[in-house]
């Protein structure tokens, strides 16, 4: 059986590494396309959110390629969001559309015990120590992927030769495809960091930082968010990748209690408390806390990327407005629906970056 997952920020590489560690096959993933979205939209229930539509098209493409097992990341039980119903709904529709074998394995939402049972079943019954080691391989690769993405996001606004940062990033992400042992992920990360020194970065350019807000799926898939981070980077705006899977998986599941991600996760939860006492969906609390943290560390504005039909996003809006008021920073809310235009979004980001730059220069 060959497995697949969703592409989000190349974090599927962690999944691939874990499958390789257990000697299982993990497929190359096709890129998300407009065609998938169109198909997904045509087959989705009326009120499905945008991620549902896109991933439905994506899963059908996998099924067409005879990849019938889909594995979902093991992040914390996403309380009140469609997350869990979403994958089950997708499975139902893909099966109905002529691929009865297509099965979604969700590694989250049912607690640690069930997650281990699922893992055991899929990986051919390894022992518990072996499963723990598999999780270590997954975690180390996740960490390496997210750190590479972070380095690239910070460097891109300053790159002297256009495209040099992305060339560096894709080279080292390709290296991560080979990971089977956790040490390998660490070694690759170390070598990538050394290689990073060779990229020419201009130190004089005024780089402004903004915080990117939104629900998990959108801010993780460049296809959804019209590649917001790269767009902002090209406008000289630096962005930290929010809600990375390393943070959510290692921090949220306390993989290393007291470790880096767990501390960060707790810090964000704490920082969200002024604005939030409930967790109305997805990683709402962590998302809000992360925005507050970034503003405290000098971010000068907030970009809120929403998608049509996303309930957590709708609720994010008034809370983000309140945060923006408290920190006296500008905010833009951008809503993507199926027919949204990339160009219109680019224009809004340019205007926003201009505003931030003028504000900075005035100071």
């Amino acid at each position, binding site marked *: 059986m060959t497995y697949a997952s969703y592409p989000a920020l190349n974090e599927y590489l962690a999944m691939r590494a874990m499958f390789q560690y257990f000697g299982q096959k993990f497929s190359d993933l096709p890129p998300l396309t407009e065609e998938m979205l169109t198909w997904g939209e045509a087959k989705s*229930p*009326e*009120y*499905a*959110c945008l991620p*549902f539509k896109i991933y439905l098209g994506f899963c059908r493409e996998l099924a067409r390629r005879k990849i019938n097992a889909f594995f979902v990341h093991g992040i914390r*039980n996403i*309380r*009140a*969001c*469609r997350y*869990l*119903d979403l994958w*089950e*709904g997708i*499975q*139902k*529709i893909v099966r109905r559309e002529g691929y009865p074998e297509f099965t979604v394995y969700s590694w989250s*939402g*049912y*607690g640690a015990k069930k997650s281990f049972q699922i893992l055991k079943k899929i990986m051919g019954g390894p022992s518990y120590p072996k499963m723990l080691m598999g999780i270590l391989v997954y975690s180390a690769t996740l960490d390496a992927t997210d750190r590479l993405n972070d380095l690239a996001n910070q460097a891109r606004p300053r790159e002297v030769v256009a495209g040099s940062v992305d060339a560096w990033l894709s080279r080292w992400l390709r290296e991560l495809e080979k990971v089977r042992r956790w040490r390998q992920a660490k070694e690759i990360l170390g070598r990538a960091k050394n290689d990073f020194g060779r990229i020419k970065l201009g130190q004089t350019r005024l780089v402004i930082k903004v915080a990117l807000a939104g629900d998990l799926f959108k801010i993780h898939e460049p296809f959804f968010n019209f590649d917001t981070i790269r767009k902002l980077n090209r406008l000289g705006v630096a962005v930290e990748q929010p809600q990375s899977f390393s943070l959510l998986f290692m921090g949220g599941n306390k993989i290393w209690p007291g470790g880096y991600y767990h501390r960060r996760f707790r810090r964000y939860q704490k920082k969200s408390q002024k*604005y*939030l*006492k*409930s*967790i*109305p*969906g997805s990683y*709402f609390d962590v998302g809000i806390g992360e925005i507050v943290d970034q503003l405290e560390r000098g971010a000068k504005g907030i970009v809120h990327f929403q998608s*049509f*039909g996303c*309930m*957590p996003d*709708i*609720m994010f*809006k*008034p*809370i983000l*407005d*309140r945060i923006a008021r408290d920190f006296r920073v500008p905010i833009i809310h951008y*809503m993507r629906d199926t027919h949204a235009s990339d160009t219109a979004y680019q224009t809004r980001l340019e205007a926003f970056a201009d505003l931030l730059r003028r504000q900075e220069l005035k100071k």
Partner: protein
Amino acid sequence: MEQAGPFGIYRMTIGIPRAGLYYLYYPFWKTFLETLGFDVVVSAPTNRNLLAAGLKVANSELCLPMKVMYGHILDLRGRVDFVLLPQMDECSWGAGTYGTSTYFCPYFVGMPDVMEAEFPDLKILRPVMSFHDNQIVDGPWLDFGRQLGKNREVVRHAFDQALASYQLFLAERTKNNRTPLEILEKKKVNTGDLPQKMALVGRPYIVYDESANLELIKKINQRGYRVQTLEMIDPEELRLNFRQLPFHSQSHWYLTNEEYGALRHFGQRPDIAGIIYLIPFNCGPDFMVEETVIADLRRRKPVAIISIDESTGEAGLTTRLDAFIDMLK
């Protein structure tokens, strides 16, 4: 609770929006607060002005029930000391049964936070409301009562009283076959000679809000059908019904599962001529109901799905209803 004011001592008033989960838990909330010594004020029934006020401030992408909720909060703003907006939490099920937790819609979970952000001047009381095996969990209410300055025994007594009136409300619905509209709003429903029965399934705050649903129950009655709703079914019967769905088809949403249960229940009843499933436009949790239950149900029973939002007009709704009733004949 009493407080000194310019004209002497007065009792604090707590406002409850006549919207959202009011139709399910009002007897509990009211009894709890009144037993603790507060005055309870309910917002006005939904009307055109109230809805217009809600639509003006609410995010346009919200579902109709939430826009209505904004209107009710605005109606209470300025005329009560506090507004009660419980934070709806987890509904857990005992081990060996469903085995996992279900949730309320995110709007009900996060509403107190959102309203605090929207209306900084609004004083909100936000007890946590969670359930275990369909029973209201007492702990958060005991904590809430103590935060209001009451002692342990008084709060325990208030909780017991509140639970008793909630049980009475449940019994009145299921044993006497009455809708929350009759019990809470004293409205006349299903009166006169109504030879046939029609099931109306949907979220209580859209099924029973006559203004938001353009008096759908009355319209069904006028066409000779007695209306049967989800709230008239015994909760245990609902649960047995949705549990018969394959595990992966059961929802992670508490009220959606109840709808699944009700749709299946009505689908098996020979005395039900047809089922209307009323869905607010853009309702997130209910987005899979058609795929999961209704597609299958249609093989056994006529089902009409009526979607509703603020732009739904009298004429459109009537035409839709009449077409469905013609089909039943």
